[in-house]
């Protein structure tokens, strides 16, 4: 049984926990609370809380909101609601039929055990520049739908990603749905990572004639398929130099456009 030192042991810094049952309730919490963070799958946020890199005063856990986990066809594309787990998208035949690029991309996100909890909308809201799904949304020209006490808003992929871990969502907005258009043209998602499931050193997404890059700028970026590394200034770290990342972009883009 518990040893004395373990009693009351917690990792995250102090926060107040809220568990709304509806989107309206979640939005009213987000509009009234100062420094609140939405908790969906938690596969990015909880590590940040455990390390105390994130210290929000309030956590709004949307996991008990009913009817927010659907993956369905809408307006010639696929809508993925806020609580749809990445694993559900991976297993969805509707997604495989209408947007196989999304099925393929989601399999590159971490590992199945993570995808059992992690959500597509969470990945988009987290806006990690090295993550696959933001680049997929950008290459496809999709959008997200947000809700707040002020109403509903649609944000196009090109407007959504503002910087490293920074999206265009206002603090009182909840992303309720992401929409990925149907794709009948050629597609590919290629990335180079040290190990399966790791974040990519560099990656490319092709959707028809569009090419989006990830892991090589502060946000996912659209690139010219004939000169994909033009103007790129990727960061350098222990894993890869900037020049190596530009090299990867050129090679991966060439392969993707030949697919």
């Amino acid at each position: 049984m518990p040893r004395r030192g373990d009693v009351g042991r917690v990792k995250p810094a102090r926060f107040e926990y809220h568990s709304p049952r509806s989107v309206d309730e979640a939005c009213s919490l987000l509009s009234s609370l100062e420094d609140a963070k939405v908790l969906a799958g938690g596969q990015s946020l909880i590590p940040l809380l455990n390390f105390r890199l994130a210290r929000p005063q309030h956590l709004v856990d949307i996991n008990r909101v009913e009817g927010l986990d659907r993956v369905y066809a809408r307006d010639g594309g696929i809508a993925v609601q806020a609580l749809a787990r990445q694993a559900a998208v991976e297993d969805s035949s509707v997604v495989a039929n209408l947007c196989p690029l999304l099925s393929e991309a989601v399999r590159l996100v971490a590992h199945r055990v993570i995808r059992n909890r992690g959500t597509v909308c969470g990945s988009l809201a987290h806006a990690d520049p090295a993550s696959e799904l933001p680049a997929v949304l950008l290459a496809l020209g999709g959008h997200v739908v947000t809700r707040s006490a002020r109403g509903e808003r649609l944000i196009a992929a090109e407007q959504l990603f503002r910087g490293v871990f920074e999206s265009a969502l206002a603090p009182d907005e909840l992303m309720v749905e992401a929409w990925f258009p149907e794709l009948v043209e050629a597609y590919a998602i290629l990335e180079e990572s040290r190990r399966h499931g790791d974040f990519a050193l560099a990656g490319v997404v092709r959707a028809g004639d569009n090419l989006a890059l990830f892991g090589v700028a502060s946000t996912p970026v659209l690139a010219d398929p004939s000169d994909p590394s033009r103007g790129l200034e990727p960061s350098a770290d222990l894993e890869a130099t900037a020049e190596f990342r530009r090299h990867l972009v050129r090679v991966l883009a060439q392969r993707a456009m030949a697919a």
Partner: protein
Amino acid sequence: MKVNGVDHPAPSDTRRLLSDHLRHDLGLTGTHVGCEHGVCGCCTVLLDGAPVRSCLMLAVQAEGHEVATIESLARDDEPLHPVQQAFHECHGLQCGFCTPGFVMSVVGLLAQHPHPTAQQIEEGIAGNLCRCTGYASIRRAVGRAVELTR
């Protein structure tokens, strides 16, 4: 929440992780804690049958759900679960620290794919780190677990 078939109240501190709750409040120390940011896979448990990282969930989030830990697979004096038996036979462990996480991931993998391909096996264990075995014996153990489950 139900843990291994028994009802337990959620902890009063909402900051308590599910992994810490299992170990320190319920005494279920078979769930190991390695990295606490979702990389090592040691803390993997089943949530409503699907493997998840217990260090990446707040314990209060498991309220109303069913959690299964390594302790649920074979009680004392019961034969080992097929996945445990396979790890035993194939030397799928050395120090054993990562083993509960591997076993729970493999239980989840075989529930999803009862007859996994070699690639599905590799992907199924790719989210768990082992510093002893070099993985070859673990891969064999998964194949053996498939045979034992038949």
